[in-house]
């Protein structure tokens, strides 16, 4: 990281240079609900770190904090040595040029063909000859196996293909950090495995730091090097996926074992049942 403005107060468990993203004391209130209450988190360089947790715990919100799309109420978020909450809009854009982001719903630009979608970041930021743009785009499309679909429009693609095009687009500028937001949602087992394999290959061949937001443990344990489990506004557990699966805590048992009730309650908080049904005797 070799930065000079790095906060000296950070008591990272690992050496600072190993962490690409470092979050300290994150606190977020969203829509009147306390989403994060003192989250500390380190994303090591060159590894795939999975952020897991039940639906609604704010996994996506957490990555939106990292990219500066959403401001946190308190806390420090260092991305490659830069403190995101203090960046101006221009600096944020500079930061994001080094981040590839795969959206939950792919977010392809519907007006443009597959080729133009993948070429979009290049055309917007660099003045390259058409020849070079074409070569870069086609190699990326080849990497995700969709070179033949270059002239199709996004509406003509299946969900899995859209995800792969979005992946090609996200990595077109060789980002230092890739963020995958729920990349497996809504994919059939074949497409899921294709995406999974791509994420793993990208990380192994290019040495990209990756953040994988997901809740499918079976898929995550095959890809991730490190897992953070978020629940109840805190980091409930973290560690290697295998080790985490074997650890015996109520959170991990419920989440990885898929039990319906546990620390994450089945029931939404409500008034007394008998009272709601109108039995005053029960309330007394």
């Amino acid at each position, binding site marked *: 990281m070799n930065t000079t403005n790095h906060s000296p107060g950070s008591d990272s468990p690992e050496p600072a240079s190993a962490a690409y993203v470092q979050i300290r004391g994150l606190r977020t209130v969203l829509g009147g609900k306390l989403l994060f209450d003192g989250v500390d988190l380190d994303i090591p360089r060159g590894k795939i770190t999975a952020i897991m947790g039940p639906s609604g715990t704010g996994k996506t919100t957490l990555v939106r904090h990292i*990219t500066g*799309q959403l401001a946190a109420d308190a806390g420090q978020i260092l991305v490659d040595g830069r403190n995101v909450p203090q960046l101006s809009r221009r600096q944020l*854009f*500079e930061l*994001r*040029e080094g*981040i590839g*982001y795969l*959206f*939950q*719903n792919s*977010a*392809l*630009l*519907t007006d443009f063909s597959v080729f133009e979608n993948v070429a*979009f*970041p290049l055309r*917007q*930021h660099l003045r390259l000859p058409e020849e070079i743009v074409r070569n870069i785009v086609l190699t990326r499309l080849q990497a995700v196996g969709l070179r033949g679909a270059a002239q199709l429009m996004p509406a003509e693609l299946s969900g899995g293909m859209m995800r792969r095009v979005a992946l090609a*687009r996200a990595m077109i500028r060789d980002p230092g950090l890739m963020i995958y937001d729920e990349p497996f949602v809504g994919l059939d087992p074949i497409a899921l495995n294709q995406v999974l394999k791509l994420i793993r290959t990208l990380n192994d061949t290019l040495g990209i730091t990756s953040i994988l937001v997901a809740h499918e443990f079976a898929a995550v344990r095959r890809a991730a090097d490190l897992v953070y489990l978020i629940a109840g506004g805190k980091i409930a557990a973290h560690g290697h996926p295998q080790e985490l699966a074997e650890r015996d805590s109520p959170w991990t048992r419920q989440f990885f074992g898929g039990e319906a009730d546990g620390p994450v309650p089945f029931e939404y908080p409500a008034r007394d049942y008998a009272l709601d049904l109108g039995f005053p005797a029960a309330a007394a």
Partner: protein
Amino acid sequence: MTGDALAQVGAAGLFLFSILAAIPKSLRHYRETLRQIWFVGAMSLVIIMTCGLFVGMVLSLQLYYTLAKFGGTAALGTVVALSLFRELGPVVTALLFAGRAGTSMTAEIGLMRATDQLSAMEMMAVDPLAYVVAPRFIAGVIAMPLLACVFNVLGILGAHAVGVSWLGLDNGTFWGNMSANVEVWNDLVNGVWKSAVFGAVIALIATFQGYTTPPTSEGVAYATTRTVVSSSIVVLAIDFVMTAFLM
């Protein structure tokens, strides 16, 4: 309720400033601006031309009937041209433009919001204000006056068809009277300015509604409706103010 409306007006005003601030950056995306002129301008031509023709024809009929009562049918060309250039051309074109192009701008941006395309641009370090909103705004300002001119031409031709070919007014009287009384700057160009302002207002409302819509299908539907309703009201109100104070 009025507080909400005021807050909306204030937010739209701030939005206008951020659009204007994004215009220098959007000049890099001139291709996108050209594409938008094609979409909001050229694609609106058919409806504008059809309506212009019919408005000119009915205007000619009505005014002929009225002028005949005063024996002033010779002034038909003048009255038709003045009503079209100063008032009907800009206003009717603006209302059609709001319905045809404004709604599609709102729906398009709203859907881009709902499908995370705007966030995706932000994440690719592309400012959606400069890439999506500003080109549409510029396209509205450029396309509206051109459409109003086309509307006026078709209106005059429609009026000529009814007045001269059907009702038997003298061809020379129609054109001569018109050209003797219509001023280029006072009548024609003022109408063109007016329609440029209308174009800006409609594009502002349409992009604002699309940009701030809740990202649901219901939200986009409501935003589209609001675009038509508010731009129609605002266009007519601004029309009165501009006519009263500037012309």
